[in-house]
């Protein structure tokens, strides 16, 4: 049974009504890693935010269900929804430099959810934090726990955020482009770390990225997004062998291969763009009458 099931989720901008998500459906089973791929602005991180209930105030959900561990979050009152998400899901943010509170030491930022939301005893939470910092290979974790965010490197801080996410043993983790803000050398280590942690803890992982290379190494299945609409949803193996949708193929062609870095990159052709635009228009007309 899939841990997260999103059905027909639509969202739009308040005021102008500009569509952000168009009836998105996907599901992530326990222990499975599902990728959300698309150009920037395609709505992939919006889905992650919708699931975790942190949509920007200017965006409103118009229809759909988000079932987390069998319960539709949208039907719960805000406070109840927040607590349930806090207890069962977690976020690995994109930019570690801004995701830690500069005026608080590291320790409370890792243990606060355990103590306040999950009701753990302080001692158990501190022990858990130490154990997780070891797991994410942070040298001298006692000193790190006492120090302030500005005293640590970007890579170190991302490891802490990963540790903090896994500390609560969440059933679902949303990783919102966790390596984009890091320099290349550190990206590989962090990717490897996330994959190992996910495998070890058996957490369902929703991995938002624009890098198909990452998807091929980490995810088991993926959804390709364009204009807030799921263009294709397939297992990774089938996708890389033969993507069904024209836009997916164009996207794959535009992605540099590690194996052949010098190959000239083919930008997504105009025709394909026109095709998928038409699809969007048709979808909207359908949605209006539906």
């Amino acid at each position, binding site marked *: 049974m899939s841990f997260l099931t999103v059905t027909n989720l639509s969202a739009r901008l308040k005021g102008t009504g500009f569509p952000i998500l168009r009836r998105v459906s996907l599901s992530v089973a326990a222990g499975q890693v599902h990728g959300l791929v698309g150009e920037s602005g395609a709505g992939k991180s919006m889905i992650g935010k919708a699931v975790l209930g942190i949509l920007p105030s200017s965006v409103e959900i118009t229809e759909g269900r988000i079932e987390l561990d069998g319960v539709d979050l949208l039907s719960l009152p805000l406070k109840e929804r*927040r607590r349930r998400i806090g207890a069962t899901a977690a976020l690995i*943010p994109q*930019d570690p430099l*801004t*995701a830690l509170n500069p005026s*608080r030491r590291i320790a409370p930022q890792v243990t606060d959810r355990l103590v*306040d939301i999950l009701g753990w005893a302080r001692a158990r939470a501190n022990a858990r934090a130490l154990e997780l910092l070891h797991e994410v290979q942070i040298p001298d974790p006692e000193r790190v726990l006492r120090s*302030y965010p*500005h005293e640590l490197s970007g890579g170190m801080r991302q490891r802490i*955020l990963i540790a903090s996410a896994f500390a609560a043993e969440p059933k679902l983790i949303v990783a919102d482009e966790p390596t984009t803000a890091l320099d290349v050398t550190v990206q590989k280590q962090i990717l490897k770390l996330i994959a190992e942690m996910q495998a070890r803890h058996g957490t369902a992982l929703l991995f938002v990225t624009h890098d198909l290379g990452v998807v091929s190494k980490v995810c088991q299945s993926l959804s390709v997004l364009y204009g807030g609409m799921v263009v294709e949803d397939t297992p990774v193996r089938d996708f890389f062998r033969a993507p069904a949708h024209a836009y997916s193929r164009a996207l794959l062609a535009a992605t540099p291969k590690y194996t052949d870095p010098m190959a000239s990159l083919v930008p997504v052709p105009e025709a394909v763009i026109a095709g998928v635009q038409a699809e969007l228009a048709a979808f909207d007309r359908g949605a209006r009458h539906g």
Partner: protein
Amino acid sequence: MQLLRTFLLRLLTTAITLIGVAVIVFVVIRVVPGNPIAMMLPPGATDEDIARLTAQYGLDKPIPEQFLIWASGVLQGDFGTSITARQPVLDLVLGRLPATLELSIMALVIAVILGGVMALTGTRARGTKVEAGIDVANGMALSVPDFLWGLVLILLFGVLVPVFHISGRVTPSLDLPFTTNFYLFESVLRLRFDLWADIVSHMFMPALALAIPLAAIIGQLLKQSLKETMHLDYVTLSRTKGYGENHVITREALPNAILPTLTLVGVQFTFLIGGTVIIERLFSYEGLGNMAIDAVINRDLPLIQGIVILFAVIFTAVNLVVDLSYALLNPRLRHG
């Protein structure tokens, strides 16, 4: 070592500032028309009376010479004798300073609380009518001078619903066991809460009148920096941890949003002390400001000089404290 160097530099600049203030006020009040001697002339006085009195108060010498006499006196702690009160200026000024300081501190506390509540509510309800209402309320608080708030308060809580005392600093008939002039603080230290309540009942209206415009300024600025902080990632992360919006604002956003407001509070505090003149006059509160107006009306030159210099000292001292506390509170600077 670096901290010491900047501290010494600060002391030097403070000294320059104080000297500059002393010179300017010394010249200005001697240029002001209406010298104190004319004030003292009785009906039948003759010209030599005028000359004799002028010489007696040393006002016949050229201004630079008068300044040197005054400055040399100050170095030995003698700020001259007040013409009207015929007592050393230093005793008078230091006697009245605690009252003004306490009033300013109480006004600041009220302003911070009021401003804080406005900012937090405004942020919590940002984008809604509530925030628009708070903005208009802040605009109103800012656009009415504090003495008019004083008038409104006197009519409301002094006469219509007599809840607070209208003038003075304490009920005269009470016997005060205080040794210092810091009535408010000492009444707490001595656990005399009956006296404390009486003093607060006297100070509340003037402090509130002073606090309303200040609260508006603090409220607006804190709300703005809070709203900016609310967009940062660590706030969003905290929401995913399951915390409610109130917790997120107060525990995650507020500690970081306070820092820029702190420097403003420091500067406003100095304006506050300087600005109590009118309110002390309206509420007959015996602070420095009240005495300052009498000094100006009676052209009590040494007293005016003493009061202005004291204000300058407080101003520079408060600035120093604010800068130091900014460094202490901001972890980045503390662990430099």
